[in-house]
């Protein structure tokens, strides 16, 4: 028994363990998603995260111990984001014609995300700090956290809200867009990317390369716009 415990202590301190457990959880979550006929609620990110949180709580592992291993996966987000330019370039011929509709839809979409979060949050009685942490939730994590810090929110809490927003869009995005009769893959992807950043972009790529490319574009553009809009809207609010 002591031997086994020593093995555990050794493993728990190595990045190998949590890196491996992260990959296994994702492989299991992805297999479950496939076997369920790609049932939206069994979103691979949601299932893998739930599984990992359960394992970490059961083994009394802290997030920083876990992240020491998982950071190698996390690191790839950077180059993967840069790589989004490749599918985007494949749509370049269309983008030239669509820049105005895309720009307007982006602006209207970003405004609706920020204003509805403000009204719902205030209306449901959430504390000021919480509301300020929610406003930038549709932007990708580093931007959302930066905005939260600027407007008096709690950046780590914003990171959580960003993840939950992404999972919401990844789960509900495609069924919802089907419900409103949207057929164009580009429009579907763009709406998901604007409202739910990278996590929904990942789901859009499972739909089609075209949807993924537009989602990546929506995510990138909304990162910039949210950073400008949230402080501006709050500034305008001071006049009322």
């Amino acid at each position: 028994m002591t031997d086994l415990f020593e093995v555990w202590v050794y493993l728990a301190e190595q990045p190998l363990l949590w890196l491996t457990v992260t990959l296994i959880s994702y492989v299991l979550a992805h297999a479950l998603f496939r076997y369920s006929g790609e049932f939206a609620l069994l979103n691979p990110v949601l299932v893998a995260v739930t599984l990992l949180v359960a394992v970490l709580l059961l083994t009394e592992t802290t997030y920083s111990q876990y992240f020491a291993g998982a950071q190698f996966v996390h690191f790839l987000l950077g180059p993967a984001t840069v790589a989004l330019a490749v599918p985007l370039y494949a749509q370049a011929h269309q983008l030239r014609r669509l820049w105005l509709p895309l720009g307007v839809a982006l602006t209207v979409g970003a405004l609706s995300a920020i204003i509805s979060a403000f009204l719902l949050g205030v209306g449901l009685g959430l504390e000021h700090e919480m509301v300020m942490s929610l406003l930038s939730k549709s932007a990708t994590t580093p931007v959302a956290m930066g905005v939260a810090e600027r407007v008096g929110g709690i950046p780590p809490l914003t990171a959580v809200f960003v993840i939950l927003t992404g999972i919401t869009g990844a789960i509900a995005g495609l069924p919802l867009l089907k419900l409103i009769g949207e057929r164009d893959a580009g429009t579907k992807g763009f709406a998901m990317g604007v409202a739910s950043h990278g996590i929904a972009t990942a789901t859009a790529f499972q739909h089609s390369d075209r949807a993924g490319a537009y989602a990546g574009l929506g995510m990138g553009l909304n990162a910039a716009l949210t950073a400008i809009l949230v402080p501006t809207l709050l500034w305008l609010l001071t006049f009322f």
Partner: protein
Amino acid sequence: MIGFLALLLSLQLVGEIIVRALGLPLPGPVVGMLLLFMGLVIRGQTPKELNQLATGLLQHLSLLFVPAGVGVMSYLAVIKTHWAPLLITIVGSTLLAIVVTALTLRLLTRKTLDHD
């Protein structure tokens, strides 16, 4: 392949430098994405190996969000206390934004197509 991986990392690095030097409210990788896009527009085509690398990285993009997602565990207490208003706000606002963006784009592209 390794050459293009080095290219992606270099563009991310340049992106980080630009963001910090100019004080832009953007993540470095998003600027790196814009730089790569401009590079591809100038070059006029995507090299085959870069295409393979991008496809490989983006095929399991979901996996890359898992470590950050697990961070939710540090805030379980806050979420538990306010779960109902938080859930309604996040889900409601996100679904609204998806519908509004899609309907706006549909309305405007229909008009453009009509003029064609």
